[in-house]
């Protein structure tokens, strides 16, 4: 009974997912058939020739997306883990001011700061380069810094004390001792940020208007026609774009749940 209910819910919930996969595997003639839940015959043409014809530069878009996602994740982890650690470990003048300042700015929507930032990047000649989507990550993110602080607060101090007695500098202690045992926090935040960046659409359509700079979300969206669209290819694109993220989550699921629970996001 319990499993029956859950099963029905899961099926209803996953109808769209099934429909995407099924559409992407249908032949052109069967594309609009409402009864083809299991495609017959199954074809991979949308994934191979179809997608390649619709988006000849797919490789380029994938490279652009990967570059932005990886570099901005690295930048965010670097700047926010350092700041979160300082806020959690040391007393220093104005610490509380900075902490509450960061907390308060978590509420500020990116859309208010967007326009001046756009003007700044335009002056720097960064339009149609990946910089606007990468460089800011190297200068922190209030949410991630807060998250790291919470994590390091719940973290025993004894390990570092031992290292300090050895005379290791703060940075060496951090890199050598703190980072290796903080995997859950790094993984949870890194995956969250990577996914957000990989899936992003608003900033790319503002900063990356030239076709050779496009990311995957823009490329897949561009297949939408005004009246008619190549739905087989679009769905194949959706599957290809989503699979890496699903695999990523499956690989890190354990750390991810730990990371979320540790930091008390639960309130």
């Amino acid at each position: 009974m319990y499993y029956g209910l859950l099963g029905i819910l899961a099926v209803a919930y996953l109808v769209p997912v099934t429909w995407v996969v099924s559409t992407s595997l249908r032949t052109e003639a069967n594309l609009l058939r409402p009864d083809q839940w299991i495609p017959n015959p199954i074809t991979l043409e949308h994934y191979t020739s179809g997608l390649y014809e619709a988006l000849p530069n797919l490789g380029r878009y994938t490279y652009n997306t990967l570059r932005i996602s990886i570099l901005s994740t690295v930048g965010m982890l670097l700047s926010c883990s350092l700041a979160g650690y300082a806020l959690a470990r040391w007393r220093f003048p104005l610490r509380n001011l900075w902490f509450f300042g960061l907390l308060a700015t978590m509420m500020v929507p990116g859309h208010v700061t967007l326009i001046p930032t756009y003007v700044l990047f335009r002056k720097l000649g960064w339009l149609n380069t990946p910089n606007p989507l990468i460089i800011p990550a190297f200068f922190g993110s209030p949410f991630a810094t807060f998250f790291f602080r919470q994590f390091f607060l719940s973290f025993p101090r004894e390990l570092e004390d031992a290292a300090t007695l050895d005379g290791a500098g703060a940075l060496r202690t951090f890199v050598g001792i703190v980072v290796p045992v903080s995997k859950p926090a790094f993984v949870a935040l890194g995956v969250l940020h990577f996914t957000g960046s990989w899936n992003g659409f608003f900033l790319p359509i503002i900063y990356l208007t030239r076709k050779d700079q496009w990311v995957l979300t823009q490329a897949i969206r561009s297949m939408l026609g005004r009246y008619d669209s190549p739905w087989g290819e679009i769905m194949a694109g959706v599957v290809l774009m989503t699979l890496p993220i699903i695999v990523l989550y499956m690989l890190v699921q354990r750390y991810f749940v730990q990371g979320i629970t540790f930091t008390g996001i639960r309130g």
Partner: protein
Amino acid sequence: MRLRSPSGLGLNLWRDASPRARRQWLTAYAFMSLQLIGLFVFILGPLLVSLYYTFTKWDLIAPAPKWTGLRNWLHFFGDARIGQVLGNTLWFILWATSSFLLLSLALAVLLHQRRRGTTLFRALFFIPYITSQVAVGLVWSWMFNTRSGPIPNFFRLFGIEIPNLLLDESYAMIAVALVATWQALGYGITIYLAGLQGIPGELYDASSVDGASGWQRFRFVTLPLLSPTVLFLTVTSFIAAFQLFDLVIILTGGATGVAPGGPGGSTRTIVLYLYEQTFLFSERISGLGYGATIGWMLAVLIFIVTMAQFRFARSTVFFLEDSD
């Protein structure tokens, strides 16, 4: 004991500190430096500059913004479009947040019953959440289509012919909210489950001994102890809903043959309007200036609503005494 000179508190702190403390301060600031630069360059600075832009007109072609005083603000409060846009956004928030908060709570309670196999369900529900809104939007615009979409077909089983909801002025926004809820459920479930796991089992045992029914246990044990989680999810889902953009631009633009924000402007949100006014329309009111005005009003609205929620929470949210 040393005498404190009255001048310059910061300097005094520095002078009176031990060398060890000084070293620690420097280290702390070095660790903080990237985030602090970011706070000023990418958040606080732009926040102020953006406020300045609201008093100017600038199309980015002229060398500098031109001061226009209160023109943007006066225009904002007289703009009929703004009325519609705010209404649309609030209508979306109403549907999306209420369905999200209730459905994910119900599912989390169901999944919390620690039976085997629930991990699989939890993972399944998480898939849409980690999928791009662009992908989700494309999928659902395909789901709603009247030729082969599963939704119109489902209703056809009962002999009901429904239109493409995304093309119907009175239903388009509700359809968008439905999609947003579908996508976010997995996240809500995960957070609720973390909250449910934090509730001590003894409380349930005690209430069972007292003869409480399942519903009473939920109402008088689970719900109060879960209220911090509910507050967290309420606040964050409102903030996210205020900023709806990606989903709407995909769901109601292109595939359906209407401009984004359609039909009849019924799904134009605050952020979509900001985007159009800043980056799209050639006939825009005052370019960046009006866009900045819309952005500032969005921030103010979010601030007011969030504060109101925390105020309301003071009387309703229940914190366990011993939880940190």
